[in-house]
Each structure stands twice: as structure tokens, then as C-alpha cells.
């Protein structure tokens, strides 16, 4: 299984990841050396020197601490990265549609919830002031018969290519205009094997109707793993067997300067058995269904929480044992008149230095994971906000880990140094 997985990984991508990793590590190393040199010139605060020497004195313990932090940060970043990737994937169609408002069947829970609306609703919407255009969109499952005789389920997305309501993006071969020709479809190249095709010009069948590939996209992947097949609106209805006067959604474009809220209310008053949602509302509803209605989001957050707990426990344990080992030194600090705050700062500096070292190592590993999973069914997404959030989380986690150690040192009796 592992071998299969390894052989599926693009060697070029691995090389690219390796080069990126080397370049990043080189730049980081140079930056750190520069900072150390500058800090030496300025004079590193003695409290930082003491904390770092305490930390680096016991290499085995330091490695344990850093591994704990790296493991924790990677676990959290992968879980949250998967969450972000999942969040993006479940709304990718909504994100790429050109609509100000969506008219959806009442009770629609997510984008892939293919109930049907009467086409007359579209004309009612068109008659409302402030509405510039209403484009129908039809969605539904169909069975794709492969050229080699097998079959696989697909999710058909049909819209008028001229309306631009929801046409395929990231085109790598062919053209959108070609979808206007009869019996034509667009598919993503990542699904070629599933569909039993090799590329442009190959064809399958749905409901005994030919479906010739005239456009190929890259990166339009479904989190359900069912391939998307784009077709013109009428052809899609034919592939799905949907009635001619039905559509799944109506995508409303507003006239310039139209009041979105007012138009939305007017449409809602004039149509039956349908809801009118803004794009943001439909996106939120879809995300809510897939991430929390199905429990997937809770599982990802649960994994992230587990990572935080494991990381905190490991760092707390190592910081505590390090503090116990240096207890005589902390007692000496207290004896020579150090305030509790100064001692607490020493321990917090140790925690902070551990956090920074662990975080950067984890980010290097994270970079590899992001690169390797970029074209997978569920990519791990790393945003600048997530990186910053993880850094803050790591620092916070290490600071919390220091509590037990701090409790130990604030109780030190300075007089104990006299009896040692």
C-alpha cells in the first residue's frame, strides 16, 4: 500500500519540494547566523543567555522537547490545513460561480443537494426591478460509461457557457466555447483514469448519449471523489434525465447600484418553494453542512485539539524535569536577590526558545506536506494567517507548559543553598 502511494507521488514534485526545503533551510540558517552575529555585537540579554544555555545544555532533553513540539505543531497544522482545504473544496463551485443571489429549492443544505426548481421561477425573478440577469444551473448524478465498457458515477454541472454563470476554470486544453457543440463535455485531467479516457477528443456515454471531451481542466476536484463533468445546460439535463422545464439553481446578477437586500426580499415574495440566498450565505450553509452536519469538521478540530494537548504535555514534562535539574541554580538566583518575576522570565524564555525552534522545524515539514498534497483529493492548505496562528499557538502552548515548572521554582527556599 505504501509502495503504491509512493509510486503515485510525482517525483518532480518531490524534487521541487526538496529544493524548496533546501532553499528555505539555507535562507533560515543564514538569517539566524546573521541575527546571532548582530545580537553578539549588541549583547544578548543575560537572561536569554541563561535560558538558552539551560535549554541547550541537555541535548537529549532538548531533542525530546523539540520532537514533541514538532509533532504537535504538525498534527495541528495538518488537521487545520485539511479543514481549510476541505472548507475550500466544499464551496469551490459557489466560489467560482458568478452570482449575487442564489435562488435555491427550499431546504437546500449544500451545493450538491440536487432538488429541482420550476423554470417559471426564473422568469418571475427576471421581472423584478434591480435584477439584471438570471442564469439557470442544473446539477445531478449520472452514470458515465467508459469507452472500455465499465461505468462510474459522475456529478454533472450544466450551465449555459455564454451566461458565464458557472463554467469550468483552470482550463489546460480545449475551449469553453466548444461546449456549445452537441454532445460535448469538460472534465478534469485528474479524473482521466476514472473516466477511462486519455484526453481531449476521447468520449464516454451518459444515458446512451455521447459525451466527447472538448475541454480539460486542472485542479477541479470533488471532495466526494465523484468526478465533475461540465456540460451545456440543455445537454446536462439530457445526461441527467432531468425534465426540460427544471433547473437546480437560478443565479441572479443584479443591476448596477441595485440594493441587494431589497431585491432579495422582492424575489423571495414573488417565488414559491424556494429560498433566496446571498453567495456568502450559500457558502456558509454548505460549509456548515459538510463540516459540522457530517461531523467531519469536528473530527478535524478534535485531531487538532489532541495535537495541542499532546504537545503541551510533552513540553510541560521536559520543562518541569529541566527545572528540577536546575533547581539549585534557581535557588541560588533567589538567594542573590532575584525576584520571582526574573526566575519566571528565565523559564518562559526557555519555553519560548523551545517553541521557536520546534515551530520552524515543524513549518519545514509542513511545507513538504503542503507541496506533496497539493494535487491530492484533499490538499493540506497553509495560509499566512494559519502560519501566524500556529506560531502564536505554539508560543502559548509552551507558555502554558511552563506553569508546572514555574509553580516549582516560586516555592524555592533560598536558604537551601546554604546547606548544599
Amino acid at each position, binding site marked *: 500500500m505504501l509502495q503504491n502511494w509512493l509510486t503515485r507521488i510525482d517525483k518532480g514534485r518531490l524534487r521541487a519540494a526538496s529544493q524548496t526545503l533546501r532553499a528555505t533551510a539555507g535562507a533560515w540558517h543564514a538569517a539566524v547566523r546573521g541575527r546571532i552575529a548582530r545580537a553578539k555585537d549588541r*549583547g544578548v*540579554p*543575560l*537572561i536569554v*543567555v*541563561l535560558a538558552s*544555555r*539551560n535549554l541547550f*545544555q541537555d541535548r537529549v532533553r532538548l531533542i525530546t522537547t523539540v520532537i514533541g513540539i514538532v509533532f504537535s505543531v504538525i498534527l495541528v497544522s495538518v488537521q487545520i490545513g485539511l479543514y481549510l482545504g476541505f472548507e475550500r473544496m466544499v464551496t469551490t463551485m459557489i466560489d467560482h460561480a458568478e452570482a449575487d443571489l442564489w435562488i435555491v429549492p427550499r431546504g437546500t443544505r449544500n451545493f450538491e443537494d440536487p432538488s429541482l426548481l420550476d423554470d417559471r421561477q426564473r422568469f418571475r425573478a427576471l421581472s423584478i426591478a434591480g435584477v439584471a440577469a438570471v442564469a439557470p444551473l442544473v446539477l445531478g448524478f449520472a452514470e458515465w460509461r467508459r469507452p472500455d465498457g465499465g461505468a462510474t458515477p459522475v456529478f454533472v454541472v450544466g450551465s449555459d457557457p455564454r451566461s458565464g454563470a458557472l463554467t469550468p476554470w483552470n482550463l489546460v486544453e480545449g475551449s469553453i466555447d466548444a461546449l456549445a457543440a452537441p454532445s460535448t463535455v469538460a472534465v478534469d485531467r485528474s479524473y482521466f483514469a476514472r473516466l477511462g479516457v486519455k484526453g481531449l477528443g476521447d468520449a464516454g456515454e451518459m444515458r446512451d448519449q455521447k459525451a466527447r471531451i472538448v475541454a480539460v481542466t486542472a485542479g477541479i476536484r470533488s471532495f466526494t471523489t465523484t468526478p465533475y463533468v461540465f456540460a451545456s445546460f440543455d445537454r446536462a439535463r439530457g445526461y441527467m434525465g432531468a425534465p426540460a422545464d427544471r433547473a437546480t439553481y437560478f443565479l441572479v446578477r443584479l443591476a448596477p447600484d441595485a440594493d441587494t437586500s431589497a431585491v432579495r426580499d422582492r424575489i423571495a415574495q414573488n417565488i414559491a418553494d424556494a429560498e433566496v440566498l446571498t453567495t456568502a450565505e450559500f457558502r456558509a450553509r454548505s460549509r456548515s453542512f459538510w463540516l459540522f452536519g457530517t461531523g467531519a469538521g469536528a473530527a478535524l478540530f478534535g485531531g487538532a485539539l489532541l495535537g495541542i494537548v499532546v504537545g503541551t504535555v510533552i513540553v510541560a514534562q521536559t520543562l518541569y524535569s529541566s527545572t528540577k535539574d536546575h533547581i*539549585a*541554580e534557581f535557588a*541560588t*538566583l*533567589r*538567594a*542573590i*536577590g*532575584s*525576584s*520571582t518575576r*526574573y526566575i519566571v522570565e528565565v523559564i518562559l524564555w526557555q519555553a519560548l526558545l523551545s517553541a521557536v525552534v520546534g515551530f520552524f522545524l515543524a513549518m519545514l515539514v509542513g511545507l513538504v506536506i503542503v507541496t506533496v498534497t497539493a494535487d491530492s483529493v484533499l490538499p493540506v492548505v497553509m495560509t499566512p494567517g494559519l502560519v501566524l496562528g500556529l506560531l502564536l499557538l505554539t508560543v502559548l502552548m509552551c507558555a502554558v507548559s511552563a506553569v508546572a515548572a514555574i509553580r516549582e521554582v516560586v516555592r524555592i*527556599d*533560598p*536558604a537551601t*543553598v*546554604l*546547606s*548544599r
Partner: protein
Amino acid sequence: MSAAIIEAVDIEKTLGEGVAQVKALRGVSLTLKGGELTLLMGPSGSGKTTLLSILGCMLAPSSGTVRLHGESTASAGPEELARLRRNHVGFVFQSYHLFPTLTAIENVRLVLDVRGEHGADTRTRAADALATVGLAHKHHAFPRELSGGEQQRVAIARAIVGKASAILADEPTASLDRENGQAIMTVLAEIARNPERAVLVVSHDPRILPFADRIVRIEDGRIVSEETGLRDAVISKEPEVTSHVP
């Protein structure tokens, strides 16, 4: 001799609880004056270390009063006592208690750092303190690279760098051979020549008797005798030991 640096009046200290309770000090009164090296001697368990802890603001007495530069420690909490220690007291311990991960000069600077003094002049002051104890050439040596005598000199430099008015030394020669012990005592005796500094050495080592201006003997928690006027004659008797203290 000049003004009193530390005054302890009628100090009592009870340690432990219940049947394990021990009266470590029973009405001890002692004044440490500037320009004076006081040697506190007594057998094990006589209360020497307990008295040193109380005079050094590490331990609060059960009763009696301690004044450090005229400031009473009676109602001082742990942080206030720590402030008094860092501003007025320098300690020299039997086992040196240097930080093994810090160099000699960093160990000395640490006292200034805990006082919130971080400026560039702290290096100069630490270097001066090391030069005072004859270790100008060992700034960057770690404790493991120093002999016992050299480590104790670093500890003395650490005690004097903050210009503490009271230097309290707990068995400073106990871990050293005779030659190093004599050298350390010479340094401490020189420090005690400063009229603004009082030095108290706790020891049961009779070899250091000649360095004392005053010898206080304690037994069973009570001061049993005091001798004064010994020092000047002694320094001249130890010409082989080189002192670097100005």
C-alpha cells in the same frame, strides 16, 4: 570601623514543628559594622547557618528584629526580602553555587542583571570585580574549567560587584586546600578594609582565625564569647598570599 550595616537584636528562631521542633537561636544580638571582618564560629548545629540566613534576609526570625541599613525586615514578605538581598547583601557559599552554563564574567554580571542593570557598563564592572579577585585572565572560562579556589574567587567577585554593603560567607574555605583557603580569606579581609562594607564569615576552620577583626563564638543557639582587635597583626603575618584588592 564605621556605622552598623546589619543589626540583629534578641533573635530567636524555632525550626520544625511538633516533637521535631528545635530552638536554633535563643536571643542572639549581633551588629556587623563597616570595615570589619567578623568570624562566626561554633560547632555543628550551634545555629551559625541559621543566624547567617536571618542576617542575610533569607529567613525570617521567630522573634527579635533585624535591621539592614536601618530598614527593619520585620514585616517584609519574600519579594521585599529578595529586594534587600539584591541591593545590600553579597553571598559567598561553601559550594560556590556558580551557574555551570555561564562563563566567569557572566556569573558575575548575573547579580547586576537581577537588579535590572543591563547596560554595557555591567561588563566593565564585572571585569573589574574579576580583576579585584585576581581573575582578569579568566573572564570566559566556565566553572568546570576553573579550580576550586578560582571558582570561589568568582563567587567573591559576584558578591562584591553590586557594591553590597554586607558580604556573608558560609564556610568559604571548607572545600579548599590550605593555600587556596588562605588566598580566599586574604581577599575577604581586604574587602573588609572598606569602611562601608561589613564581612561576616561563618566557619569552624581554625586556620582562618588570624584574618578576623572580631571572633564571635556561638553554641547551642547563644553567643558565648566575642574577641576583637585581631586583624591588623594577622595580615602582616601572611606576606606570601598576594591580594589584588585595592
